[in-house]
């Protein structure tokens, strides 16, 4: 069986996508294109990478066979790419469980200083939209999972953006950040702000950024952190981060396009 490999670095974790089958070359090329900002040359420090096996085949029986082996398999490339993104993310965050605080967040950075702001919220709160709008001005670190180390450093995850298609298909198109003219992330981002997203049509006309009480924010943020429970002293770790960045904030807004001045202030430590 043909096989092509695509080595990625995802949240600092080395992960190889292994494309199998007659369409392996085409699949690998599509993965390389979409995940271009996560491509790497070789695993760091000789560590063994994680593997994600993928297959596209028109025969449903073969797809079922592959899925039974734990592969990401589909009868079309679009479906495969749609399903691959959460699989890659899932494998990486599972690997980091207990080590990093992994927020369900988008992260934007000052490309020169590495200062980064996390915008935390559940699905549907506008993280990808925000990344697409503001990532043309600020460095794009991630639109989905922001993994923060104990020293406040942030692991890079400039994944493809999952965008709804005009056709109305449920399949989200996986678009490389370069195709959207996003700004590459800095090499060593670090967190300077943690912001709870509050996007709603009846938000104040001018975006409102406010400091919020620590403990209610801890409770709200805990729901948006993967594998928090298996971390040692998770609330100490979270409150430590929040205190280090001047406390949690909430951003109420209608449209992400209005947020450039607010994000600039946050990254400069002026907000």
């Amino acid at each position, binding site marked *: 069986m043909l096989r092509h490999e695509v080595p990625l670095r995802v949240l600092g974790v080395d992960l190889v996508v292994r494309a199998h089958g007659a369409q392996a070359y085409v699949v690998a090329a599509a993965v390389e294109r979409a995940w271009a900002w996560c491509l790497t040359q070789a695993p760091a420090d000789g560590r063994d990478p994680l593997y994600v096996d993928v297959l596209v085949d028109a025969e449903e029986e073969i797809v079922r066979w592959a899925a039974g082996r734990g592969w990401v398999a589909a009868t079309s490339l679009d479906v495969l790419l749609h399903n691959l993104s959460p699989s890659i993310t899932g494998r990486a965050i599972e690997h980091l469980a207990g080590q990093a605080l992994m927020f369900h967040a988008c992260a934007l950075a000052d490309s020169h200083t590495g200062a980064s702001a996390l915008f935390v919220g559940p699905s549907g709160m506008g993280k990808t939209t925000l990344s697409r709008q503001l990532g043309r001005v600020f460095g794009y670190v991630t639109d989905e999972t922001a993994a923060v180390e104990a020293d406040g450093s942030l692991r890079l995850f400039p994944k493809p953006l999952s965008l709804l298609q005009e056709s109305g298909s449920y399949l989200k198109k996986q678009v490389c950040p370069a195709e959207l003219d996003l700004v590459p992330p800095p090499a060593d981002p670090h967190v300077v702000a943690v912001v709870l997203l509050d996007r709603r049509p009846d938000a104040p006309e001018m975006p409102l950024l406010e400091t919020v009480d620590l403990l209610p924010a*801890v409770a709200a943020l805990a729901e948006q952190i993967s594998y928090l429970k298996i971390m040692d002293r998770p609330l100490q770790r979270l409150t430590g981060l929040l205190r280090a960045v001047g406390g949690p904030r909430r951003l109420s807004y209608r449209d992400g396009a209005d947020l450039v001045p607010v994000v600039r202030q946050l990254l400069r430590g002026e907000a």
Partner: protein
Amino acid sequence: MKLRRLTCHDLVLDGDQSAAYVGDSVVVLSPISTTVLTALAEDRWESVTDVAALVEETYGNPPEGSAFEAVSGVVDELARLGLVERVD
């Protein structure tokens, strides 16, 4: 009635309030709940009367009812959350 604290995954204090990681969620505890919880130990039983006296000393008398009644209500909630154990 006697009380003792149960192990929770983590507890943080901020001023006179706290947040506890219990079960699969994080709950924010009021100042009185925090006072009660932090007055207890896992390896020692305390009487509700003694804990109520501590709360009364810290916060004064409640606007309605007695400190004992107020603390009993708090203990009910802490027990429901799995943060304290009580025996008659």
